[in-house]
């Protein structure tokens, strides 16, 4: 409960893009699971661990993230002391002239200096799990390592970027490879790292002094020659969002009872921004099978193996199979969709048929009228 750590969530990942879906938003703000954004899971993990100061860095496109996070009240992070800090990119005319390279490190340094906790947990925004960090920190503390990195062993199947960690017999990092052709290990970074706040301040000031602009988990892991970095295996259920197809398959896994049980019913709540939608209404002719449905939906057609976000309308005679339909989408009469991802606020006109493949879903961008 009384954890001596603060959190930092990296809302973007330089190696990950979800094509059309990441056009309007940062990776962390990607809608998932009917009523969540990816960041909700990591933010809830931190809050459930007792962390009361969390920074979120977005590189760009942070409007949707800011809308979602607000003051942080949904996560009980609207506090007088610390709470949620949204750290926008640090832009000045000098570094914009340097070809658009954005220097976010000075603002970051101030943020770390203004906190008082001993440890910082830094997390990427492409992994979803439900756990606390208390054991992770205890083990880090006991090991006496400079940093600890969480990993598990199923990462490689999610495709690029897989950051493979080669650990020595004592569990310390001795080599690190990104997307190796022939991996020598199954240990794949989960992008959650803990280190001493003072050490982090040193590292960030050094990189500012050297004129570097990069700040990422990979950047810190590369210091394995200089610092002792210990691996910590996380054995719980994890989903990784590395691409459109892994986003699609992660969503489909949320239709499995065991996966939903692990992520949502473990006793640790997953917080998100509340919307006050009305309850979902089902008419007398609908057929819904193996699907997750959110508040505010109106279901009059056929839906199977799909994820419906809040406020979706499925009109009569429409057939939806294996689809992800995001907030406030209107599916008109007699529409047939299979393996399709439809972003927010789209309208699909009557009679339209769209067919994607299970490993290559069709994506309709935000606000489109098809």
């Amino acid at each position: 409960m009384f954890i001596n750590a603060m959190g930092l969530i990296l809302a973007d990942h330089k190696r990950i893009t979800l094509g059309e879906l990441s056009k309007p938003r940062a990776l962390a703000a990607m809608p998932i699971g009917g009523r969540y954004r990816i960041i909700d899971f990591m933010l809830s993990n931190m809050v459930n661990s007792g962390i009361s100061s969390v920074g979120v860095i977005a590189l760009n496109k942070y409007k949707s993230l800011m809308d979602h996070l607000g003051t942080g009240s949904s996560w009980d992070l609207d506090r007088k002391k610390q709470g949620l800090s949204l750290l926008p990119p640090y832009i000045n005319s000098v570094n914009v002239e340097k070809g658009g390279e954005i220097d976010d490190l000075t603002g970051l340094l101030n943020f770390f200096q203004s906190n008082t906790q001993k440890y910082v947990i830094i997390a990427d925004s492409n992994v979803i799990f439900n756990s606390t960090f208390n054991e992770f920190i205890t083990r880090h503390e006991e090991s006496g390592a400079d940093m600890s990195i969480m990993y598990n062993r199923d990462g490689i199947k999610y495709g690029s970027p897989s950051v493979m960690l080669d650990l020595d017999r004592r569990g310390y990092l001795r080599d690190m490879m990104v997307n190796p052709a022939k991996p020598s290990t199954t240990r794949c970074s989960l992008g959650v790292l803990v280190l001493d706040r003072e050490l982090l301040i040193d590292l960030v000031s050094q990189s500012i002094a050297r004129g570097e602009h990069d700040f990422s988990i990979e950047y810190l892991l590369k210091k394995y020659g200089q610092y002792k970095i210990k691996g910590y295996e996380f054995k719980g259920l994890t989903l990784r969002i590395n691409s459109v197809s892994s986003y699609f398959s992660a969503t489909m896994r949320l239709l499995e009872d065991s996966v939903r049980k692990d992520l949502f019913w473990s006793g640790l709540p997953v917080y998100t921004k509340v919307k006050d939608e009305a309850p979902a209404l089902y008419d007398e002719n609908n057929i819904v099978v193996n699907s997750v449905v959110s508040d505010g939906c109106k279901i009059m057609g056929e839906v199977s193996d799909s994820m419906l976000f809040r406020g979706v309308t499925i009109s009569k005679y429409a057939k939806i199979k294996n689809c992800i339909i995001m907030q406030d989408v209107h599916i008109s009469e007699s529409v047939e969709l299979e393996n399709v991802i439809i972003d927010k606020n789209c309208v699909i006109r009557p009679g339209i048929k769209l067919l994607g493949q299970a490993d290559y879903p069709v994506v309709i961008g935000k606000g489109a009228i098809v």
Partner: protein
Amino acid sequence: MARQEVVALILAGGQGSRLGALTKHLAKPAVPFGSRYRIIDFPLSNCTNSGIETVGVLTQYQPLALNTYIGNGHSWDLDRNNGGTYILPPYQSSGRSDWYKGTANAIYQNIEFIESYDPKYVLILSGDHIYKMNYAKMLRNHIKEEAEATIAVFEVPWEEASRFGLMNTDENGNVIEFEEKPKNPKSNLASMGVYVFNWEALRRMLSEDENNPESSHDFGKNIIPAMLAEGMKLSAYRFCGYWKDVGTIGSLWESNMDLLDTPEQINLMDRSWRIYSRNPIKPAHYISSGARVINSALTDGCNIYGTVEHSVLSNSVTVEKGAVVKDSVLMPGVTIRSGAYIDKCIIGFETIIGKNVKAGASVEGDCKYKNAKLCSDGITVFERGLCIREGAVIPGNCMVELKSGVESDEIIEYSFRVR
């Protein structure tokens, strides 16, 4: 404190004894309604949507659930620096300590609270009606009519009129007489229990009423007639739209079913007048293969493996495979085990209906829980926190509740504390 033009007061202290087991542990305004809501969400949301920023909630009977539910008013945007929500329980003071003796006395005891905002108008609301209403419009009408009080009225069918408190009006819409449940109604304008008063006039009436030993300190019975006797101008404000008193088992059930049968009437999907509520922290609901959900309203946290027909489910309800739920209202956290058949039931928080239980209107048989006084139309009610024994048979019109000192019987396997 900064001055407020209007202060709203919600009367939420009544027990709601006609709801039987449903209000054993909580006050009527805190009873779940319409899948996502509690009854009090309606007046609270109406206040915030009407731009009223100071709301006092008068509580008395079993206030814990209501107090925790309202909290600081955040869910309704009523956590304000100036104004906001206030829970107002009866209190002790030097010289007197009283429970609220009636609706008027409850307001009288809170004169100090109201005075601290120095309002011009006071809006009195009851915490047990389902409706969407713009109080600002009513207030504008009150100001335009230069009335001392305005009473919202609702046209009811003539044949039902004798069940209500009726306002007899003249051709200008001014109230000339108030009749409580008359045998031969002269009007079909029922009082909705929504009043706007000029605070100055009301304050004087409340003090006079307080000193009258004959009075039962009730707005309808005492304050309104006294104002009429003094010749004050009382205006009737006609409300058109959905309005329902959910004070009985029958009307609570009916009003829930209205959401399914005539959703356009109360129109909960209208985003310009949202009904806010405290949101449960639960994932979106899941409908499995083999499940069938028709004509129903569902919300977050539900897991459906069986059949749900024409029912209203609150958050985190589980209906197992092979179970059938028909024409029912299930409150948060209810579990229906496999093979159970539930027809026209209202089931309280977290109650577990055991395997193959048969309960409700179409179930034959006799049962010691029959309760003709409170239950009607075949509706069977279950208290919260019960586990109903496997295979139990419970016919319609039953109120299944644990009597004090009893831990279990042939129907109730055990009970547990609902948190």
